[in-house]
């Protein structure tokens, strides 16, 4: 009799988690380069086995749901900023923090740091084929010395080469992990590779870097709303199962009084 309570409660908990994930998608509907996550319920037998926790130990790390990232492209938006980059195709920019830890991101809102390095808003450096992409410090601190009459012009080709006044100062690399399952998201639109996967460098035949463009969040309003309605109704359905069970139980107990 009590089994139904737990089955229903399990379903309701899953809907709560779904709502939390959807709320995060929605909150990030204007975050550049954001990839929506989606939740699916796992096989109920697996899930129940977990929930009952036959071995009797605490097992919080194995919820009855799974999730995946939707890596489809978001809409591209033209900005007038030459430091904005978008990836047309699959892949990620490779960025590196001060400790040398490498991270992957689709957010291309770069800027120049105080020493002329291409950085994200939190200071992580954009990595190219030969280390961080950077305007030489001599030029940055005293731009007139190498001025060759062509003006200061930062141009980034679709194949990733970065030109300053027609002189190449670096080449952006685009990467993917060998296995996308091993990507774990941390904050600020960044992913870290958790498993044993190596980084695979992408060939610019299939992907392009677009200067002056940004990739919007790929959160789709309609599907988030539909999911929200669906999960709310499923939550209510779960509550009816519990209430019905409760009243059945109530009657069974009441029945006992006649004997």
């Amino acid at each position, binding site marked *: 009799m009590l089994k139904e309570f737990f089955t229903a409660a399990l379903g309701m908990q899953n809907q709560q988690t779904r709502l939390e994930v959807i709320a995060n998608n929605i909150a990030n509907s204007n975050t550049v380069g954001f990839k929506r996550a989606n939740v699916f319920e796992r096989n109920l037998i697996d899930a129940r086995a977990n929930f009952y926790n036959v071995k009797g130990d605490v097992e919080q790390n194995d919820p009855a749901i799974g999730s995946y990232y939707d890596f489809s492209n978001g809409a591209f938006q033209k900005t007038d900023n030459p430091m904005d980059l978008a990836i047309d195709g699959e892949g990620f920019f490779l960025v590196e923090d001060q400790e040398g830890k490498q991270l992957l991101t689709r957010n291309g809102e770069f800027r120049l740091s105080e020493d002329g390095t291409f950085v994200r808003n939190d200071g992580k450096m954009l990595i190219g084929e030969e280390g961080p992409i950077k305007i030489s410090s001599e030029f940055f601190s005293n731009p007139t010395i190498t001025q060759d009459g062509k003006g200061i012009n930062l141009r980034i080709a679709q194949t990733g080469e970065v030109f300053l006044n027609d002189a190449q100062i670096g080449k952006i690399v685009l990467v993917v992990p060998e296995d996308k399952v091993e990507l774990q998201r941390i904050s600020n639109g960044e992913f870290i590779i958790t498993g044993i996967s190596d980084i695979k460098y992408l060939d610019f035949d299939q992907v392009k870097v677009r200067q002056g463009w940004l990739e919007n969040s790929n959160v789709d309003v309609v599907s988030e*709303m539909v999911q929200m309605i669906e999960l709310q109704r499923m939550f209510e359905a779960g509550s009816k199962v519990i209430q019905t069970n409760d009243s059945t139980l109530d009657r069974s107990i009441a029945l006992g009084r006649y004997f």
Partner: protein
Amino acid sequence: MDKTLRTAATGLSAQQKYVEIIANNISNVNTTGFKKVRPEFQDLLYETLRPAGAVSRVGVEPLNEVQIGSGTELAATTKIWSQGDVQQTGNPLDLAINGEGFFVIRKPDNSIAFTRDGSFHIDRLGQIVNAQGYILEPGFTIPADTVEVQISRDGYVEVLLDGETEPQSLGQIELARFINPAGLRAVGDNLYVETPASGRVFFETPGQNNTGEILQRYLETSNVDIVEEMVNMITAQRAYELNSKSVRTADDILGVAVNLKR
């Protein structure tokens, strides 16, 4: 459950700031030389219920991670330095730069600031000054008996004095350039000052190396595009409503859960 509420609250507050930024852009649509500002949002920390690649107790195959994010925040704002339209005014001391340079302004405390706002005047002493009365570098004094001021595209200031036929040269306006204008700090009154992030200032003759020519009798309007701002405002407003639906749904669900117990 209240995680949903807090996540939605970060979304609401971020979209509200988005509207505030749009409102500031729109209110400066007629400000000479104003450059629009864009927000940059980022997602916050993720709570990982199960790390990527973990193996289920009952299954054997590695599973996708399950992560729950905690919302969004406004991480930074960026100024967009694109050229605004130039508009004819007829005033001989209205100057517009058709390129990437800045006018150099000397403030009363002798510090230097930079501006794209080229609406200049002549003060009591005959000096060319901006709207705040700060001097346009390197300093020009217009004689009292001047009938016409001419400023050439490469910055030469010439005056035609009363009773003369040949104009007299007062000097040349130099424009400032930066490798990274996005790194300049706005100090109000349409003025900017140099920072380490902008790179060192360097001076160039107008018209050289993308610095831009000086157009006399023109002003550069704001680069705010009303259509774009309206589209952004709709986006922000709808995103705000969407986040409020998360709050509503979380509240409804909480109500159902509370009412489980009769």
